[in-house]
């Protein structure tokens, strides 16, 4: 069930309306968990048992690890990584559409043929966070319904933000309608729908030319333009989803972590990863980068750790060489910039040169990040390299008339304005205008919506 479907609107309204009824007050957690199961099963009912196995299995390991962390925590983590590995990467080795038996055993064949469970990358990370955080802090054993809610809370179930257990679990307590920050929640939800429907979906009609084989009809100039547009699109798409999730979370009394902080004005690649998909960066840093040594073991080992973490982060998105290449490219950029960061920061603080240097740094980071998205959009490595080759060709080939610059402007403008206007300083002067601006955004999201497409991060 997509956030942008009318079915989801009805679903959210019903769940919200019942949630604060006095009769539901004593089992709000169970109600939300049940609603989340319905939300998940609506699209893929055959995968509900898998979700149940993942949650109940994790709960079992949590109970055991609370008694003996040293023994059961690694097993619990391996259990979850095995789930992720099996369902996410099995398609590298099998052809699930093959008419004949794959393994010869009916039950195994059934598992092998199951589609990629939506959101598995996200709920597996929730599971691991639950195991590590609660056993590390020697918390009291939570009840099963709370664990269910943490892992499958529907606003964050399929595409995050990846909420750490130590942040979410303390929030599980009775909720009251009077405590809901309704205006803040509405702002998040309207912003999310606006960025998804108005920006991302409309840009998608242009960036669909990046797909194979359509990109072969593009001139080099349009290839460059579309790479930049995809950069805006993927941001608007994922930021939009995260914003809706945060707004919905607030409606039900839960504050989910902020996932984006103007990533395209980052001055360095390490700065970018504190602004882009922040919940994933935090997760990888907390549960992977620091445990394998972080930057405590010398320069060479730090570089290796960065490459490993970013490579695995890339593969987390999907089982394709392109995702690995995307992750490794970011790892390489982080390694390369690391020795130069102090000097660059000093230059940026220079009175005279500072603004120019900062602007150049922002442009370089944005350019490199956008270039790297090619591997994300075209996870088939051959397609990606062929596309890149065409970016540097010296001949025109194609259908440039379909990419109208006026449309490019009106659909990228919100991202540009969001990043370049100092909204923080305008907060007070624009206070009175805000309800009208959000009203306009909501109307534009409705009447100017581009053709419906699923959220890009749903596939992960």
């Amino acid at each position, binding site marked *: 069930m997509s956030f942008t479907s009318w079915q989801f609107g009805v679903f959210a309204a019903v769940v919200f309306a019942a949630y604060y009824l006095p009769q539901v007050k004593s089992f709000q957690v169970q109600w939300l968990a049940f609603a989340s199961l319905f939300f998940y099963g609506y699209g893929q009912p055959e995968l509900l048992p898998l979700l149940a196995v993942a949650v109940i299995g994790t709960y079992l390991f949590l109970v055991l690890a609370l008694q003996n962390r040293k023994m059961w925590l690694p097993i619990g983590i391996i259990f979850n990584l095995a789930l992720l590995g099996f369902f996410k990467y099995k398609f590298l080795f099998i052809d699930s559409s093959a008419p004949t038996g794959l393994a010869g055993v009916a039950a195994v064949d059934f598992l092998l043929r199951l589609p990629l469970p939506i959101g598995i990358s996200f709920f597996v990370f929730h599971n691991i966070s639950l195991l590590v955080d609660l056993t590390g802090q020697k918390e009291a054993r939570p009840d099963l319904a709370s664990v269910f809610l943490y892992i499958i809370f529907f606003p964050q179930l399929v595409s995050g933000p990846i909420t750490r257990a130590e942040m979410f679990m303390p929030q599980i307590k009775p909720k009251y309608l009077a405590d809901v920050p309704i*205006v803040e929640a509405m702002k998040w939800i309207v912003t999310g729908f606006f960025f998804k429907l108005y920006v991302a979906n409309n840009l998608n009609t242009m960036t669909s030319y990046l797909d194979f084989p359509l990109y072969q009809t593009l001139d080099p100039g349009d290839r460059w333009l579309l790479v930049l547009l995809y950069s805006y699109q993927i941001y608007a798409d994922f930021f939009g989803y995260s914003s809706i999730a945060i707004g919905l979370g607030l409606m039900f009394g839960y504050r989910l972590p902020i996932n984006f902080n103007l990533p395209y004005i980052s001055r360095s690649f390490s700065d970018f990863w504190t602004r882009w998909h922040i919940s994933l960066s935090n997760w990888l840093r907390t549960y992977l980068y620091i445990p394998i040594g972080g930057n405590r073991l010398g320069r060479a080992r730090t570089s290796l750790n960065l490459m490993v973490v970013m490579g695995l982060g890339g593969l987390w998105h999907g089982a394709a060489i392109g995702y690995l290449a995307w992750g490794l490219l970011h790892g390489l950029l982080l390694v390369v910039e690391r020795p130069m960061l102090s000097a660059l920061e000093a230059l940026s603080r220079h009175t005279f040169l500072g603004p120019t240097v900062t602007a150049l740094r922002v442009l370089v980071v944005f350019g490199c990040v956008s270039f790297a998205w090619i591997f994300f959009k075209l996870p088939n490595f051959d397609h990606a390299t062929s596309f890149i080759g065409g970016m540097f060709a010296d001949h025109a080939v194609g259908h440039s008339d*379909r990419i109208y610059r*006026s*449309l490019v402007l*009106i659909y990228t403008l919100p991202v540009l304005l969001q990043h370049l206007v100092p909204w923080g300083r305008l907060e007070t002067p624009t206070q009175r205008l805000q309800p009208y601006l959000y*009203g306009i955004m*909501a109307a*534009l999201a409705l009447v100017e919506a581009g053709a419906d497409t699923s959220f890009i991060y749903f596939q992960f």
Partner: protein
Amino acid sequence: MDRAGTWLFKFGATFLLLWACCWAAPRLFANLPQFPPTTTDQMQVDVINRFFQLPAQDVVLVGSSLSFRLKEQYFEHGDVRNVAISGGSPLTGMAIIAAAPLARLRVVAVETNILERTIDNDLLERFKNAKRRTDTLRPLRSLAAHYQGVQDDTIIYSRARIKAIIARPPAPDQSSQQVAEALDEWNKPTNYEAMAAGAATLKSLVERLEAEGVTIFFYEVPYPKQLDRSVYAKMAREALARVIGPDDRRRLTLNYPAAELRWNADGVHLDDRSAVIFAAALDDAVHKRLTGHDRAVAP
């Protein structure tokens, strides 16, 4: 009302007001600027969408990419909706129109050049039972379309621009090489059975629409001379004649200066000026029939 209530009221009122304006605008003003489709796969869908979303017109064209080039603005009477599908067939357009409830059409003009292409069932299923509706205004997109129209007048064809196109001399013939290359292919024995089947389907669709009171006309988009005499072109005419007869009253007599026609580099599709000339002839022929001035062959 508390602060949150005031905020929500202002927000909701702004939203409703803007949405209501966008809903009302296309119902109050015709011919608001529209953007052409921006992806190839949208093109076919967009053609049919326009038929269902824009105000109904008296005359509907169905055909292939040959007729797709005949822009609605080329027709001086201004009452044409072009449902020709680039890369598709007239049969698909006819079938979608025939399956639509409450179509209330007056005239369908059918291009008869390409008959061997069958009905696109995916497209038909998508629009089966679709109803005409008036979309809401997309204010920023319309603004951009207007701007684009001013910048790039391939989108908006004013009468002045069309006159200017006609006033310029015919372009030099650039298609002879492609025509010569295409001729071999066009002279190969074609799949006559497919053409005959297409003609039979066309006949049944025509009868179905005529039973609902729709007037049907047939027309052929001109080819360069060599292709016009090719096996392919002759077989298509023969397949149609076998089904509806050689002198069917539905055939339109088109008068245009054939010597002035030119084709794009592909040798098959009319260039802009020729499309304007041919559209004028088609427009004239249809309205002569409708007003009874073309009594010699009037239905």
